[in-house]
């Protein structure tokens, strides 16, 4: 995948962090296994994940498993380690083809990710595999800069994204901090019963 189709990154701006480059899930060298996804009120979802060594075999396996689990889950655009019961700051995102996505970086996994810049806050509806029966209105930054490390190489990454992918990243980073979208809903009438999952 070319740098251009993977969205803008900050490498051109002379940052020490680069974009995803030509990273693909194949770089992990593992097929990944599907793990069971836990639902709230599971305690793993409410605990902040620990920082990980992105180069460890354990992290690489977790990254591959998150991708495998995300891919077999209909409508899933992101999955964080706490959702498979692991208290680690690792998550996978894949918004390619989503009708609301603008900038798209393909399938990727980030370790120890944090939000560097968040601007242009907008409300939007979110769901979560770990809260299967509810959705909620949450305000998120629609312009986002995130820094993290790639699993395997441990290469530092700085992603600049927007819209739906930015929302997905914030949702997953929240998971790694022990937060659900329910912790950020806009008001008493901003939680809805989900009618269909997708």
């Amino acid at each position, binding site marked *: 995948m070319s740098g251009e189709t993977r969205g803008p990154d900050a490498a051109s701006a002379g940052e020490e962090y680069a974009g995803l480059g030509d990273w693909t899930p194949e770089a992990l060298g593992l097929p990944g296994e599907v793990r069971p996804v836990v*639902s*709230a*009120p599971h305690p793993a979802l*409410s605990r902040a994940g620990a920082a990980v060594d992105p180069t460890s075999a354990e992290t690489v396996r977790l990254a591959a498993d998150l991708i495998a689990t995300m891919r077999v889950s209909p409508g899933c655009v992101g999955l964080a380690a706490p959702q498979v019961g692991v208290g680690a700051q690792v998550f996978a995102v894949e918004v390619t083809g989503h009708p609301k996505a603008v900038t798209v970086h393909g399938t990727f996994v980030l370790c120890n990710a944090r939000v560097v810049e968040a601007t242009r806050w907008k*409300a939007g509806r979110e769901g979560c595999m770990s*809260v*299967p*029966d*509810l959705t909620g209105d949450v*305000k998120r930054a629609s312009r986002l800069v995130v820094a993290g490390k790639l699993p395997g190489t441990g290469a530092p990454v700085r992603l600049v994204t927007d819209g739906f992918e930015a929302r997905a990243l914030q949702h997953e980073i929240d998971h790694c901090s022990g*937060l*659900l979208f*329910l*912790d*950020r*809903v*806009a*008001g*008493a*009438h*901003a*939680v809805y*019963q989900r009618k269909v999952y997708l």
Partner: protein
Amino acid sequence: MNELAITVIGRDRPGIVADVAEVLARLGANLTDSTMTRLRGHFAMTLICVGPAAAEVEAALAPLAADGQLLATVRAVTPDGGAATGGEPYVMAVHGADRMGIVAAMTRVVTGVGGNVTDLSTRLAGSLYVVVAEVDLPPGTADELAGRLDRAAADLGVEVSLRPADPDLL
């Protein structure tokens, strides 16, 4: 004119809102603030209107409840709504395993700092219980309340967050 508080609760079916509103319109009662929702499938409507005496409205609504599926109550209230509290608006979200007393315990903590619940909804989804409350807090009490809510939530084994309500207006 009288200000009346009316509740209509019972088995849902198409046409309840229209039936109630028609009765009120016929009596010249002016619907002001109202809210209606379904709570676990049950019809639930609460409204304030300005109109004739409570007894007259209650009698007019009685046929709606004649089959025993709906309960309608009418009560005269003092017109004092709309007074601003001057508080700071916050949103409290609570979620965790369903158990007895979550709403009671958490709203009591809010009351403890002089806070007022202005809107509230709860949902039970499987074993997950979710409470979202909009609260007005006396200025400067939010940090104290957040600490107290954390302790109460820990006792209950649930999660709580307290955030300023979004002030953005379109």
